[in-house]
């Protein structure tokens, strides 16, 4: 075994790990010497046996499959603690579902102020969201948004408040934007819209899934193609605008001069300004300066 070429084994192991991650083909053992093949194959079997064995299974009482199979003991009696259990269980289930992207913290201290009808249960944190989960028995949308508004005033560190019934079957997540009046240009100020009530796991899950960055989707975007399209589109717009300017028939002499100057300018000059703004090489002010220089050189 000690005579095995370590580098070659490392290459094969690396290829096997990539294969197990779904990132490439399985390694071929053709390049391995006959004498080493059995040992190398045993190492690959070992890698295969150990792969994907982490994270460990959740504790049985939090195991969703065990719950679905009816293997968990019956619920404890309805003590004060047990009342909030379904809410915490939902939050923890969601945390489990979203992997390491969501942390559920234990119940926070009682809220200061007049919030007797809202019992804080947990705080759920992701990369960009901090959501307070409270038990609140009300189905009135206006009352809920008003309570959310008051909570945001006293606890501005929260990005949203999740209101849930004791059994976690009826819940809604209210962001600051949804708790305040908003301006509709056609009709004026409008009160907060209707809230959607659904099981806590779904309401909270949707809120976090919307907020989580989709790095994999962004990485898969074809940047080159998009920029090519943009360049083509910019050329089309510039050409159309130049054609429109050429067709104009201004009466005043200074306007005729301006028309002639713009119509005589090469489209590439405009395109280079667009490109420099898009790529961040120049600011709007820089482009104005460059345009002024071009005007001066054209008029001199």
């Amino acid at each position, binding site marked *: *075994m000690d005579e*095995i070429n*370590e580098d070659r*084994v*490392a290459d094969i*192991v*690396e290829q096997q*790990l990539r*294969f*197990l*991650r*779904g*990132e490439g083909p399985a390694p071929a053992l053709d390049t391995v010497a006959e004498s080493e093949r059995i*040992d190398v194959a*045993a*190492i690959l*079997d*070992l*890698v*295969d*046996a*150990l*792969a*994907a*064995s*982490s*994270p*460990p*299974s959740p504790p*049985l009482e939090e*195991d*969703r*499959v*065990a719950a*679905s*199979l*009816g*293997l968990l003991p019956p619920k404890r009696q309805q003590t004060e603690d047990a009342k909030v259990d379904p809410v915490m269980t939902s939050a923890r289930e969601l945390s*489990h*579902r*979203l*992997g390491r992207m969501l942390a559920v913290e234990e119940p926070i201290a009682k809220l200061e102020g007049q919030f007797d009808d809202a019992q804080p249960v947990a705080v759920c944190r992701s990369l960009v969201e901090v959501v307070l989960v409270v038990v609140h028995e009300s189905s009135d949308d206006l009352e809920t948004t008003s309570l959310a508004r008051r909570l945001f005033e006293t606890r501005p560190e929260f990005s949203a408040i999740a209101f849930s019934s004791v059994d976690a079957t009826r819940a809604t997540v209210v962001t600051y934007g949804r708790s305040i009046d908003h301006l509709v240009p056609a009709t004026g100020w409008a009160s907060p819209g209707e809230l959607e009530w659904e099981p806590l796991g779904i309401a909270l899950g949707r809120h976090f899934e919307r907020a989580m960055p989709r790095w*994999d989707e962004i990485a898969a975007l074809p940047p080159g193609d998009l920029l090519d399209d943009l360049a083509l589109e910019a050329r089309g717009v510039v050409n159309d605008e130049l054609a429109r300017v050429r067709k104009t028939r201004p009466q005043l002499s200074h306007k005729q001069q301006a028309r002639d100057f713009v119509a005589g300018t090469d489209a590439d000059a405009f395109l280079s300004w667009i490109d420099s703004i898009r790529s961040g090489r120049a600011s709007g002010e820089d482009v104005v300066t460059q345009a002024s220089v071009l005007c001066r050189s054209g008029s001199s």
Partner: protein
Amino acid sequence: MADPGNDELNRLIVAWRAGDHRAELYLALRDPMRQAARRGIRRTLGQEPDEGDVDDVVLLAFRALIERTEPPRSPVGLACLIAERRGIDKARALIRERQKVVRHHAELTPLEHDPEDEIAAARRDRMYQYAVQCMETLTGPQREAIEATVQRQESLSDWTAGRGTSYEAGRRMVVRALMTLNRCVQRKIDDESKEERDGRDQ
């Protein structure tokens, strides 16, 4: 977790149908099933599986296992095989869903299999059990390397970058750790075979 033999597991499967020892059977099978489900999803999807999807797959696979009337040669092997195939189905469903081919997203891979596959899956689980025991023979950094790059399936470059070591050093550490583990696992397998032979001779 205790490691019940095939006969004991088959007895538990029969007991399950009668409503007895239900948690025992599930606890004996859930770890290898989760691992197999994760392996099937990961290999097909090419990304870290969502643990909620793993739950769904394990539930489906466990139900499929206990619904089978014929006693399997290796319950752990069959459980792993079903979980891995259902994991592949789940990953394919996710891919189809992304591609909006919703009509076909519930197609299932047939469960017919070569009995050798079942035995191979059981052998893999046995190897896993020995490897876990042998982890004690590794140094701390070696154990960390195996846990990260093999068990959690982090890429070697991510792991070495996070740890501040060079890629080459990390690569060598993984291979040496695997060689040490393999020697220990092979010793245990040899001991087991010897015990079996001695048992038959007596």
